[in-house]
Structures are given as structure tokens and as C-alpha cells.
């Protein structure tokens, strides 16, 4: 008998070897998963048989703390919801409170444009982070650097406007706190040109890359019906072909004045989620360019609503007049008085529909602030998407869901 023939025979019968399922913890701290999440996996070899996704490691009592803060003090908390697009959370919360105050139509036009501009910049940084990190996790380190560099240019610009690189707290109930810097428009145009170049490079090395496509194409497909039933919104829902975008379907601020497209996918797989996000960045840049032109036409003007019950008096008045000082004191200590009632307000966040359900009892502090985080609904479908697949497919699938711990766990 030839040596080795026996081995070959044994290998042929490998299928009959008894195996037993193995339970493996993925996370809560795992180098290839950005976001603190724990997945308890039941594996058979490389195949995922069952998965229990556990979130909550970043829970910071956002809703409870909000019930003990004045309406204005909640802005810094909202920065920390989706911390790669804080401006969008700022705007979402402000829009909600203004709806309850009946202020929506009184926000100065300039402030509305500024909100759109900083919001769309934030949407680009959100997508850059998501795609960059996911590419890195699949082994493509260079595009990650390109995208993070591009993100940094945008964040530096937002830092000039708001004073903070990441936790801007820039939006106020009734408007925004500062006007844009004088050289904002030329700087943004220059940055957008550079971001386009960076995205072109990323597109060149990723979109038609065999290795990348093999990991993304057809992986973690979801049908339209399932995505809707799970409450998916944003790029994840649009990847399945549902063209639902709050900015188009329920325009808020001045979104109805811009010409932009809502990209959709067709397969609902990881690659479609990647492609939709890529195109959305280009659409956001289109919005930004139109907004720069339109805000120049609006010209200089107020950036906060003219109402002393809502907006702090100017410092000169607070320091030099008794009325100004009292007004300032009352707004800081007692907070803005929001009439009793309830409201659900929704905006398009980086991950989808960012909703705020707010109940007021008429005092200076909210009775209840409910944040409806888009990625919470998306991540709950993760077990269904990875079941039956390979262990390694969890990484791109989870990456394309763009779970942001701050938002999911609040």
C-alpha cells in the first residue's frame, strides 16, 4: 500500500467526522468591530448557526438625564448620540423642540441654510467614517487613511465655525449660535474639491477590486419587505431599492429648494450599502454647493429667532442692563418654557430616520425625551443576516450597518 493512500482515504471521509457546535464571544471589544457590541455566536466550523447580538455597553442614560436638564442643556448630550455626525443630531433635536414651540416657520432663513450646510458636511463625515473603517477591516488600509484625512478637513472646518472639532453643540433652539466664518464658502469649496479627489481614489481601489467585491457582493442580502418590517431607514433601507429619504419625502428646513437625487440599490447586499453611501456623499456635495450659492443670495441677517423668551440676550445687554440680566438668568436657570404637549419629529440622520418624541408638561425641563435611533432598528436584524453565513462575513455586514454605539445605546 502506498504511503499516503490511507491518509487520502481518511480525508475523503472528512465529512463524517463528528463535530459539535462551539460558542464563541465576539466582542464586546473586538479589533475588527468599531462600536462596542457583543455577539454570542454558535459556530459549526466557520458557519454561524445562531447569533445573539447584545448592545447597551455604551448606555449613558440619555433619556433619563434629559428629564433633568433644561431644554437647551440637552444639546451637548445630542452631540454624543451619533458622534460621527453630531451636527445632524443637533439639528434633529432643535427641529423637534421648535415643532413643539410652533417656531418652525419663524426660524431665520440664514439659520436654516447654515443648518443644512453643517448637517450635510456631517453626513459626509458620517459616511466617510463608515466606509473607511469597513474598508480597513477588510484589509484595505490605504482608503481608510484617505477617507479619514478627508473627514479631518471637514471637521477642521466645522471646528472653525463651532469651536469644537467633534462635540459642536452648535445649534440652538431658534437658530444657530454663531454665524459662519467670513471665509467659509471658499474654504468649503476647496475642501469639497479635495474630498472629491479622495473619493475618486477610493472608488478606483475599492469599487472594482476583486477582493473587496468578493467580500461584499451578495453577502447579507435582505429583501425590501424584511427591511421595512425591521424598521430600517436611511442608506440601509435604500440599498434594498426603497427610495425613502426624509429630506425628499417630508422636507424640513429648506431641503425642498435643492436639486438632489436619492440613490437606491437593487440587491440589498453589503455592496449596495457601500455604493449607496458613496453616491450619497456626492449628492450631499451637490446640496452643499447649491446651499452656498443660495445662502449668498440670502445675504447677511439674523441667525437666531427674535424672541427674548427663547434666545439669550446679547452679552452687552446681559452685562449692562437689569432687564437683560434678568432675562439671561431666567433662561439659564429656569430654561425655555415649552407649552404642554407631545410631538414626534424626524429628520434624516447619517444612518436613517433620527426621530425625537418629546413630551412637555409646560416647564423648563422636558417631561420625556425619546430618541429614536436609526441604527438600533438596523442592528436588530443582524442575527438574521449573519445566520448561516461565514464567520468572516460578520465583519463587512456589521460594518455596513454602521452601528454607532453612542446612538444605538444612548
Amino acid at each position, binding site marked *: 500500500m502506498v504511503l499516503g493512500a490511507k491518509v487520502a482515504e481518511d480525508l475523503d471521509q472528512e465529512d463524517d467526522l463528528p463535530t459539535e457546535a462551539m460558542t464563541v464571544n465576539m466582542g464586546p471589544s473586538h479589533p475588527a468591530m468599531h462600536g462596542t457590541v457583543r455577539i454570542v455566536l454558535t459556530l459549526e466550523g466557520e458557519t454561524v448557526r445562531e447569533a445573539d447580538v*447584545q*448592545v*447597551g455597553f455604551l*448606555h449613558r*442614560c440619555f*433619556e*433619563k*438625564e434629559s*428629564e*433633568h436638564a433644561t431644554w437647551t442643556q440637552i444639546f451637548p448630550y445630542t452631540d454624543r448620540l451619533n458622534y460621527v455626525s453630531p451636527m445632524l443630531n443637533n439639528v434633529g433635536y432643535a427641529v423637534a423642540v421648535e*415643532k*413643539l414651540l*410652533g417656531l418652525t416657520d419663524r426660524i431665520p432663513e440664514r439659520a436654516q441654510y447654515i443648518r443644512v450646510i453643517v448637517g450635510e458636511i456631517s453626513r459626509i463625515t458620517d459616511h466617510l467614517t463608515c466606509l473607511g473603517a469597513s474598508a480597513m477591516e477588510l484589509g484595505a488600509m490605504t482608503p481608510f487613511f484617505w477617507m479619514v484625512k478627508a473627514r479631518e478637513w471637514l471637521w477642521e472646518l466645522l471646528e472653525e465655525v463651532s469651536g469644537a472639532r467633534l462635540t459642536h453643540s452648535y445649534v440652538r433652539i431658534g437658530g444657530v449660535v454663531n454665524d459662519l466664518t467670513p471665509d467659509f464658502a471658499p474654504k468649503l469649496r476647496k475642501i469639497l474639491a479635495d474630498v472629491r479627489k479622495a473619493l475618486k481614489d477610493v472608488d478606483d481601489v475599492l469599487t472594482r477590486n476583486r477582493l473587496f467585491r468578493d467580500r461584499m457582493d451578495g453577502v447579507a442580502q435582505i429583501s425590501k*419587505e*424584511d427591511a*421595512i*418590517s*425591521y*424598521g430600517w*431607514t436611511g442608506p440601509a433601507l435604500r440599498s434594498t431599492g*426603497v427610495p*425613502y429619504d426624509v429630506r425628499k*419625502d*417630508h422636507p424640513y428646513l429648506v431641503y425642498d429648494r435643492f436639486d438632489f437625487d436619492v440613490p437606491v440599490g437593487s440587491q440589498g447586499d453589503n455592496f449596495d450599502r457601500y455604493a449607496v453611501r458613496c453616491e450619497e456623499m456626492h449628492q450631499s456635495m451637490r446640496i452643499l454647493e447649491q446651499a452656498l450659492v443660495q445662502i449668498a443670495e440670502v445675504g447677511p441677517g439674523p441667525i437666531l429667532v427674535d424672541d427674548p423668551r427663547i434666545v439669550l440676550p446679547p452679552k452687552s445687554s446681559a452685562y449692562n442692563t437689569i432687564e437683560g440680566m434678568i432675562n439671561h438668568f431666567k433662561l439659564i436657570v429656569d430654561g425655555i418654557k415649552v407649552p404642554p*404637549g*407631545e*410631538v*414626534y419629529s*424626524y429628520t434624516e440622520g447619517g444612518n436613517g*430616520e433620527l*426621530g425625537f*418624541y418629546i*413630551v412637555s*408638561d409646560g416647564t423648563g425641563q422636558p*417631561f*420625556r425625551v*425619546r430618541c*429614536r435611533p436609526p441604527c*438600533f*432598528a438596523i*442592528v*436588530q*436584524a443582524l442575527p438574521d443576516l449573519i445566520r448561516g453565513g461565514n464567520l468572516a462575513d460578520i465583519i463587512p455586514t456589521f460594518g455596513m450597518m454602521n452601528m454607532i454605539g453612542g446612538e444605538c*445605546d*444612548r
Partner: protein
Amino acid sequence: MSVQALERLKAQFGDAIRATHAQHGDETAIVDPAQIVEICRFLHDEPGLGFDMLVDVTCVDTLGLDKREQGRFEVVYHLLSTQSGRRLRIKAPIDEGENGENPEIDSVMPIWKGANWFEREAWDMFGVRFRGHPDLRRILLYEEFIGHPLRKDYPKDRRQPLVRRDFS
């Protein structure tokens, strides 16, 4: 069409729809919690309504709010029809149950898969038990946590014991 949805709800369910309003443009129906599943199924299945997405499920503890004639907890559902873009809010007031510890309502998971985590969160934060939910565990907090922190009678500064696990 949402107003029409409220009208159709009233025609279909009569007294089970206790009140409706459209504060700030948000159409709302306050419903009998015992019929929540039938009502939701009607809203989901009925042609012309088609509320196919459950956007959010949450709860409000109305302790201290001037409307205690109804149950203490309000379970709040936000629905969306992706076809028509219409929205609807359903509120189901429920009692505290015995000892104030056992508010209960039926789960709407058979209708929308997305109810899963949202109902778990409402259980975690408010202690509302969703009957028929297959996996009603805490979601944001840990199993050893005592109480339900978003209830109004849970003090903000209450401390929880450190969790000690025996790995024996």
C-alpha cells in the same frame, strides 16, 4: 389620508378608539390596550392604509402629569406607510397592574419584526411586559439591574450594586 385612517379606525373599532387628535400635525389615536394587536393588524393589512413600518415603540410614565384618569403608562407606537409616506401615532394607556409592578400589553411582534428590540427596551426601561414576546430580556441594561430607570419614581441618582459574577 391619515385623517381618513383615523376615521376608518373609528368606523372599524368603535369604542376601542377612545380619542383622536392631531396636535402639531401628528395624527394620534388613543386606543384600548386590549385590542392593540387587532388594531395594528388592521392598520398594517388594510388596503389603502398599509402602515408597513413600525418606526418606534416607546413608553411614557405619566406619573406626575395631569392626566391620571387613564392608566399610568402609555405605550406609544409610531407608524409609517412607506407607500404613501403617511404617519400615525397609536397610544395605548395601560394600568400599573397588581402592586404597581406589572403593566402588561400584547406584543406586536407578529405584525412587525422591528417590534422586537423596541419592546425589549420598553421592558428594560419601564418594566412593561409585552405578552407573547419570544425573548423579553433587558437590552441596554444588564440582567442584574434592579428596577426600571425611566419610571418617574426611579430617582436619577440611585446607585446599583456592582455585579459580582462567580466563575466557579
